[in-house]
């Protein structure tokens, strides 16, 4: 596709259940990011993948959160034992090259809205 694709667009789950969110980046983009957007909290960095390098997991809020990127393309963000405070929009972004000032633009998907009841 032409842009970053995320699924599902909406997910409602019960507290304690596990959820998986998927991201399909722009073809050829080597860098992939997950951000979380909560009301009034802006965009919170979660995790960064670059090629075959070890991911930067420094933004993951707890060990209930994990992510993987298979074959340098599609990524899955998994939240185990969901809590109500996990309710947010989870945004995936990709960029052509590695992160940092030399690369510039992030291309975001439309996000996956997670509601934990």
């Amino acid at each position: 596709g032409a842009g970053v694709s995320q699924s599902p667009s909406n997910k409602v789950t019960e507290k304690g259940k596990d959820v998986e969110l998927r991201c399909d980046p722009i073809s050829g983009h080597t860098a992939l990011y997950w951000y979380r957007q909560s009301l009034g909290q802006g965009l919170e960095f979660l995790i960064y993948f670059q090629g075959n390098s070890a991911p930067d997991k420094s933004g993951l809020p707890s060990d209930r959160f994990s992510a993987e990127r298979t074959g340098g393309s599609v990524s899955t963000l998994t939240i185990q034992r969901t809590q109500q405070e996990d309710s947010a929009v989870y945004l995936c972004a990709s960029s052509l090259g590695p992160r940092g000032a030399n690369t510039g633009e992030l291309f975001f998907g439309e996000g996956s809205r997670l509601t934990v009841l």
Partner: protein
Amino acid sequence: QQQVKQSPQSLIVQKGGISIINCAYENTAFDYFPWYQQFPGKGPALLIAIRPDVSEKKEGRFTISFNKSAKQFSLHIMDSQPGDSATYFCAASWRYSTLTFGKGTMLLVSP
């Protein structure tokens, strides 16, 4: 050190007016300052960006002003239009860092 502070949280401007959003940062290593625009139900998209070797950058009705000594930068939207109504995020990064975003400003341009 990684924080970017953005103000105001929300802004209402009349059509044709000037919208001004401000950001401040602490980390002097930051050397890339983009602004992203987000419409409801969409992901953020790059609007305009500046590097600290210039004090101002203009693209159409959008201008970034940068004050390195004060560690502040701002977005000015001239002749604001209802179609500009969106949430605006400032951000900053340095050479090998992930973008750090401000908390966003919801802009409403009234007709």
